[in-house]
């Protein structure tokens, strides 16, 4: 699987990539990734390309990513050069995350949403690598999607 995670500094791109890598390693898959941080530190573009269970190099050829996870909507045109399938969080989801959990667990909550909607990893594997507070937030995000019964491919706005 080839993933690209895109966002701005401070938006949790590196957190997302770290958790996904850990889950994949937990599942016994190989992980190769590359982190590209722009020269601007705060607010600069952060880009992670990740190959799970395949490949020899960490770089993803443009157009071949299975999924592009977009944490900053204004990067959509850039993200699409990697692959057609784009995942973004809706405004309601982000608002919900900020409302439901303390600031430092927002990313974990969103990760719960992501796992529920894409089903690319087993939630139990994710739970295994997190501490208690993070587990709670992850489950909350996961449960939120189930309550909405959503499918991200249909729900993109």
């Amino acid at each position: 699987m080839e993933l690209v995670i895109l966002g701005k500094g401070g938006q949790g791109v590196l957190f997302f990539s770290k958790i996904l890598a850990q889950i994949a390693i937990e599942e016994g898959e190989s992980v190769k990734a590359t982190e590209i941080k722009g020269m601007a530190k705060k607010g600069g573009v952060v880009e992670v390309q990740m190959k799970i269970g395949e490949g020899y190099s960490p770089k993803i050829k443009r157009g071949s990513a299975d999924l592009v996870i977009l944490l900053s909507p204004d990067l959509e045109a850039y993200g699409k050069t990697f692959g057609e399938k784009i995942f973004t969080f809706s405004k309601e989801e982000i608002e919900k995350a900020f409302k439901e959990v303390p600031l430092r667990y927002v990313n974990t909550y969103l990760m719960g949403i992501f796992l529920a909607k894409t089903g690319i990893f087993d939630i139990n594997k994710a739970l295994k690598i997190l501490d208690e507070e993070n587990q709670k937030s992850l489950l909350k995000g996961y449960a939120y999607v189930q309550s909405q019964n959503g499918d991200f491919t249909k729900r993109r706005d």
Partner: protein
Amino acid sequence: MSERIYLSGNEAIAYGLIASGVRFLTGYPGTPSSEILPTAQKLKLRYKFKGFIDWAVNEKVALEMAFSASLCKIKSAVTMKQVGLNVAMDAFVNSAYIGPKAGFVVVVADDPGPYSSQTEQDSRIAAYFAKVPVFDPSSVEEAYHFAKKALELSEEFEIPVLLRTTTALSHGKADISIDNLKIEDQFQPNFKEELKNWEKEVSKLAATPKQRYLLHKALNEKLKAISERNKIRYFYEGDILILSSGMVFSYLRELIEEYNLQQKVTLGKVDIPYPLKKENFSKFKRIITVEETAPVIELFLNTEGRRNGIVPSEGELSPEVCENILAKIGLISEKKTVIIPPLKRPSLCPGCGHRIGLFAVKKVFGKKAIYTGDIGCYTLALNFGVTDTVFCMGAGVSFATGMKKVFDLSGKERMVIGIVGDSTFLHSGIPPLIDAYHYRVPILLIILDNETVGMTGNQKTPAHTKSYEGEPLNSVKIENIVKGIGIEFVKVVDSYEYKKTLAVLKGAKSYLLENKKSAVVILKHPCIYTKEGLEKNPKKPVKIVEEKCTGCKYCIVEFECPALIWDKDKEKVLIDKTLCINCGCCIYVCPKKAIIEVKDGACNTW
């Protein structure tokens, strides 16, 4: 026993060096090499072995210190980026003739692209030039193993060995299998006994030209022996041979499998691009080398590649470029080029002290003055017109000196202002300032002192009073150096104190015009990108008074704080609360006084 850990290429190199016994590691930070040394420091803190792992003032000093350490029989290494090797070149070439007495590895990170460098130079060529063997790993795992192999080769032949990495590898990550770091036994330095019997060896360590001839001869013999055992590794079984090394090898391997070219192509992997030995290629129809960024293997083995235009002569050989190369060879059909939309240009962090300081400089000296900038975060001041030249480390000072001298010769009055950061000044800005003073060149040198190496990830500078291990260090004071040279006008001011800064700069301007001598102003403000810097930074929340903002965009164009954003609908400026650090600097910028301090902490946001 081994374990799997998720490491970057740079981290893997540090693990490899430490695991094979390196106990003296120094270097100078430079993207993409900067994370190697701090990773080794973390290992030292974790395993508490003896040794020295810390930054040097520049690459030449770093290489000389590490090499001399190896002469005292401690395994040593030095890290730098490719242009840093230019700075260290004199020492590097010499180290090959003399030869280390314990393993000595020079780790150099190249930057094909380039992403964050002045040049795309290929350090494998530098290795050839210096007659030093070079390893070129193709994966994170290999980075770890080659670090170890490089050290072993160096020990065996008493020759420096270069370990070359590139941005894609240094910043690439993978879960790799590494040997358990058994520090208690494996990690204790074993040089104590040997050091007791350290003997002078003047004929080598202070060799005369005649003796150098003999050393050169011995070096050539070592290289010949190494080339004899340097074998290309072959993958797949086609009759077109593609030779490669480094990360490019991995891209090619992926593409060959993706397009099922295993029967058409043989992929030859060169682990050590120099010194190479000619192999018998008679069974192949064509031989093409695809390598970053200069022809090295291609020239030595006389193959196709750049010479016949199959491989581009500039830019990174990304997976897409490699795909195109396969098309050019005729193995696959031509691909459409993907047009990549440009990303927003980088700018200084919101609240960076350099911004307000350089804004003040522009206010006093105007747009006509020539600003010779340097390498560091502050290079980005070119976005708002306070940097006109960027060349190489320290050139901000020498360019100012050379250019100002010419204006003086011509009799034309033109202000020339050098801009240099604290670590860049210490790295190579001092010698040109000596010339500026000596030749009475009336430049103003602005030294931006943020007490860290900001651009590359906030490494320690010689101003610090404590090491990463908490050991006391002597703090080097830049103003003392400047005064020591003999410069009379030396002023230090915190750039956040805007009015004071303006006064100091105006004073400097009159001094230059009246006295015709060099002057130095040190603009101090800690980098706010560190946690500590941000916490300690003065807080002055601001807001935009909507009625007063005329939408003139002066603040955006001339000051360029990323937190000041344009509201298209209202045609006015807004503050992005997620980026703003409440530094209050923009208050001084708006000519309409539309940006004001708020006492209640509320501000209009995005």
